[in-house]
């Protein structure tokens, strides 16, 4: 039975089982992205550059992130220190690069966890319906009335700040919020003919969820994942800025804009530039890339955020 090409469902490449087919559909998709959404493609490229910087930060960074050199304090950008140095003589370029690594780690881990949580909750709620749906949705309702940042601050104040805590809290936070979007997708797919056919053939629930429902909500999930990477990076930076993120001396972008660095910015304004530009660029690239993905993958979500 093929579950593609039904009118009103999401067609083509993504309708196959999760594990298979990574090679040519992706290349074809990149081509489509480039042709139809050049701005989104630019976003994707910027993001990949930052991802590359993050992955190879240890090799690319000319100095160690926390290597102090009091003889070279607060130096303006120069050939030996492309982005200048901070009040402890640490090389700003190296710190920004390692910062990219931290940001990408937080972004991908938190968004990954969030996606898993969203999928599990969304599938349960949307497919099982009834009382389960009712109960889950009331919790989601209540959860969503609290501002993200506030929840983060409160939870971090209880469990303490550090990379694992932040990833887990962000993952749960976005996971619960995003489950509603997955649920919406599941509700549509649940009523399609191929799902009904599988049900009437007596397929087990898990089988239907894995082979019929999940592949068809994948476009929603992919878009969700992409936007959450950006959101998590921004949230971590905000927390670090408030002194509640990954603790110093870890060179987080948010942390570099606050704390000790802040007092020296008046003498060395370049300290205020690089981390903010990186943060903005990453979030900007994720935003436009995510928008393009949404338009291409899931026309129903067009215009929503």
């Amino acid at each position, binding site marked *: 039975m093929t579950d593609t090409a039904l009118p009103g469902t999401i067609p083509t490449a993504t309708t196959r089982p999760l594990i298979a087919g990574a090679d040519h559909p992706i290349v074809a998709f990149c081509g489509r992205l480039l042709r139809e959404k050049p701005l989104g493609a630019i976003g994707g490229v910027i993001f990949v550059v930052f991802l590359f910087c993050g992955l190879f930060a240890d090799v690319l960074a000319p100095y160690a992130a926390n290597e102090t050199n009091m003889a070279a304090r607060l130096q303006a950008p120069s050939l030996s220190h492309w982005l200048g140095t901070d009040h402890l003589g640490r090389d700003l370029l190296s710190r920004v690069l390692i910062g990219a690594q931290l940001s990408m780690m937080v972004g991908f881990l938190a968004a990954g966890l969030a996606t898993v949580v969203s999928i599990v909750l969304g599938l349960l709620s949307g497919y099982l319906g009834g009382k389960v749906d009712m109960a889950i949705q*009331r*919790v989601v*309702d*209540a*959860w*969503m*009335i*609290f*501002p*993200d*940042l*506030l929840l983060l*601050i*409160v*939870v*971090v*104040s*209880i*469990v303490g700040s550090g990379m694992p805590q932040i990833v887990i809290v962000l993952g749960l936070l976005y996971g619960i919020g995003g489950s509603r979007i997955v649920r919406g997708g599941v509700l549509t797919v649940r009523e399609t003919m191929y799902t009904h056919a599988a049900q009437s053939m007596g397929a087990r629930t898990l089988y239907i969820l894995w082979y019929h429902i999940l592949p068809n909500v994948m476009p929603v999930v992919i878009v969700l994942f992409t936007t959450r990477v950006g959101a998590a990076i*921004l949230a971590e*930076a*905000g927390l670090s*800025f*408030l*002194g*509640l993120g990954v603790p110093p001396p870890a060179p987080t972008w*948010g942390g570099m*804009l*606050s704390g000790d660095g*802040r007092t020296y*910015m*008046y003498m060395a*304004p370049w300290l*205020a530039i690089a*981390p*903010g530009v990186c*943060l*903005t*660029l990453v*979030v*900007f690239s994720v*935003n*436009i890339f995510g928008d393009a993905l949404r338009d291409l993958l899931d026309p129903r979500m067009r*215009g929503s*955020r």
Partner: protein
Amino acid sequence: MQAYIIRRLLALIPTLFVASLIVFVSMRLIPGDVIDQMLAQNDVATSADRALVEEALGLDQPMYIQYFRWVGGIMRGDLGNSLWHNTPVTAQLAETLPITFQLGLLALVVALTVAVPIGIYSAMRQDTAGDYIARSFSLLMLSIPSFWLGTLVMVFPSVWWRWSPPLEYTPFFQDPIQNLSHMLLPAVLLGLALSAVTMRMTRTMMLEVMRQDYIRTARAKGLAENLVIARHALRNGLIPVITLIGLQAPLLIGGAVILEQIFVVPGMGLLLLEAVFARDYPVISGIFLVTGVAILMINLLVDLTYGFLDPKVRY
């Protein structure tokens, strides 16, 4: 309409119940050693002091009793006392909440005055250079973290022109001008982030409305384009934008926490941060709860306004 309001209020009860559980449970997650830490920060602490703190936090009772005592207290308007200042949390909230509210309201005004005209312009000149610039600007605004923009505003004017924004808070009713000169900058920064989303929404809604038949009719009867927009398009296109404002309330409050810190605005956000660093849990849970309820109420109000503005929605 009345029946609708009552139904809406009843529907709030389960949400409020679960929300109160979330706040309650998160406060119970406070590990025991935090109490030790609190005592250690204090001067000489004995085990009697520990019992006192546990009592103040209500930790010596069984869970469900703690919960009902806590909820009962909230019903009477008692959110407990601050652990450090020994003042009621409600008093602290009453002092700081209006300040944050003013900041949020100013930000909203800024956002709407920036976003709505640009959104309309963008929709009227769809796919022109102006539209393109406006949309890029809105995407950029969506991406710039407010704390970075705040930092730039603090640092660069000071470096270039030896001018830095005023950081001294004056109550509005004491000296409105002084007050605004302090609050305006954080409000603009907060409003810019909000304006990005509002602008996109305004544009989308206007484009949607301009395709409707009644717009064609209005044009066909020879109405001037300005009147078509003002009288027919705007009134219908802007209604969904109001819903968006409700959805953005959490973002507004979250942003306020950061901007209050940068610009030393003594609002609820600053209170929260101080409480977090002092591990003042009654204050934290109080703010947590009040924010949740406030957002629920804002959304309810938005929904009701929606019904009031849109004659098609009658309950």
